[in-house]
């Protein structure tokens, strides 16, 4: 089964809600190894996204993704703004004209989005960034493509993989982003961006559970 355009919108709205709920948590994570703003950044960005959504609710999914990406780029700032903005814009390029989303569509979109993030951020897996949550998620989806998994099961797998990737950032020494300034002292802390990325995929798995 495929995710409808309206379910895509529900997912984005739900993620806005998740960000609001996790604002302080994300900021706390960023206090430990960054500059204590990741929660506020994501919150500001998704408030803007939610304000922009009504204007594109009847458009195709590609347009919606692009709109989300542009809103993030022009309101978030910091590292997260260009990274998440690029993620949505690049993912959106695979969804032009689409009114629903198959597992294959989603996989292609996610792959393009992550490629975009890596292109501008130059982070490798293991650098202690959002890439550490995103990459396992796409790998899980790629792995699922061969098997006869329902979309919702595939999403659950990818969210699970993202969660493990996120937790896996704890023992890492940061090589990218602000946490890298800390050197050894970055070890032992979970990366805030990996956390917000996990939450994004986890929200998808939760909202699109009937697919």
């Amino acid at each position, binding site marked *: 089964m495929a995710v409808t355009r309206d379910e895509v919108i529900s997912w984005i709205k739900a993620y806005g809600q998740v960000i609001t709920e996790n604002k*302080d948590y994300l*900021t706390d994570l960023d*206090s*430990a*190894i*960054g*500059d*204590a*703003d990741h*929660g*506020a*950044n994501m919150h*500001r960005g998704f408030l803007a996204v939610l304000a922009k959504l009504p204007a594109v609710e009847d458009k195709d999914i590609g347009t919606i993704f692009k709109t989300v990406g542009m809103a993030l*780029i*022009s*309101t*978030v*700032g*910091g*590292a*997260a*703004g*260009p*990274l998440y903005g690029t993620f949505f814009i690049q993912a959106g390029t695979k969804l032009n004209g689409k009114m629903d989303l198959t597992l294959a569509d989603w996989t292609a979109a996610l792959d393009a989005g992550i490629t975009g993030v890596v292109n*501008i*951020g130059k982070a490798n897996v293991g650098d202690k960034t959002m890439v550490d949550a995103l990459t396992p998620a796409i790998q899980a989806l790629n792995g699922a493509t061969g098997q006869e998994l329902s979309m919702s099961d595939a999403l659950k797998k990818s969210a699970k993989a993202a969660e493990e990737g996120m937790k896996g950032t704890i023992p890492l020494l*940061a*090589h*990218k*982003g*602000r946490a*890298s*300034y*800390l*050197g050894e*002292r970055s070890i032992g802390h979970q990366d805030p961006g990996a956390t917000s990325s996990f939450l994004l995929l986890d929200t998808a798995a939760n909202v699109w559970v009937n697919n």
Partner: protein
Amino acid sequence: MKKLINKPEDVVLEELKGIEKAHPDLVKIHYAPDYIIRADAPVKGKVALISGGGSGHEPMHGGFVGMGMLDAACPGAVFTSPTPDQMLEATKAVDGGAGVLHIVKNYTGDVMNFQMAADMAKEEGIDVEAVVVDDDVAVKDSLWTAGRRGVGLTVLMEKLVGAAAEEKRPLKEIANLARKINGQGRSMGMALTSCTTPSAGKPTFDLPEDEMEIGVGIHGEPGRTRTKLQTADQITETLMKAIVDDLPFMSGDKVLLFVNGMGGTPLIELYIVYRKAVEIAEKAGLKVVRNLIGPYITSLEMAGTSITLLKMDDDLIKLWDAPVKTAGMRWGI
């Protein structure tokens, strides 16, 4: 959280309104996207300088907009780099036909956002060069990290390059001058207390009453080492040694010595630090030909200091002495 603010989310907007009311002779403010430009922008035939970054470092950068320094500053949310549309619009607003230099502090967010803006501006036919400042010796420079942060040297670069732009030097030359300055300036900072961002509402890090952070960033990023409190002289020695050894500065070098306050440290303490810093510089054979002492690149109300040394030559001395008329730095006019 004890701050003279209203709502955390209104801090930057209300600050801009205050600047607008305070300095109409110097600057104009544009809202949504937010940027501050010289009152007389665009200046025909002059390379325009733009900087920007997260708010919370005042007077940098907004306080440095004006004759002899920046043409525009783009303030992001507190400690969050601005967004590309701010830099793009500011670039268009100040371009006087001679091109625009983006002065970018080396943080992943700043670099990416400025890069996007520069790409868009170039698409619109504006000649844009970008210079990345990365003077913080507290951070190991390595291919495997985000590299060094841009800190105190940014202030000096904005002044010096601003003066060069007033002389109508061409963009390429200005950009190279900025890169040269970046190549011969180094900084390091420390904190006695943490700052508190308005939106977080609590200190970014907890620092016991008898400890301090050496090598702290200007966003309250924890430093590289936490140690027991030391005297001003010991702290100054630690910072100076790291800075002097890094370039390295050599006996006979003429230098500008900049002792910066982090926002919560009063001037009386900065002079105590300056006293020791000069002594150390002179012992190393350096000639301190110019100086700057005060809170110029702050980290909200963080208590602490940073020291910047910049190797000077006759051209740089002349540019430093050239008139500047901004809210945050002014002389000669």
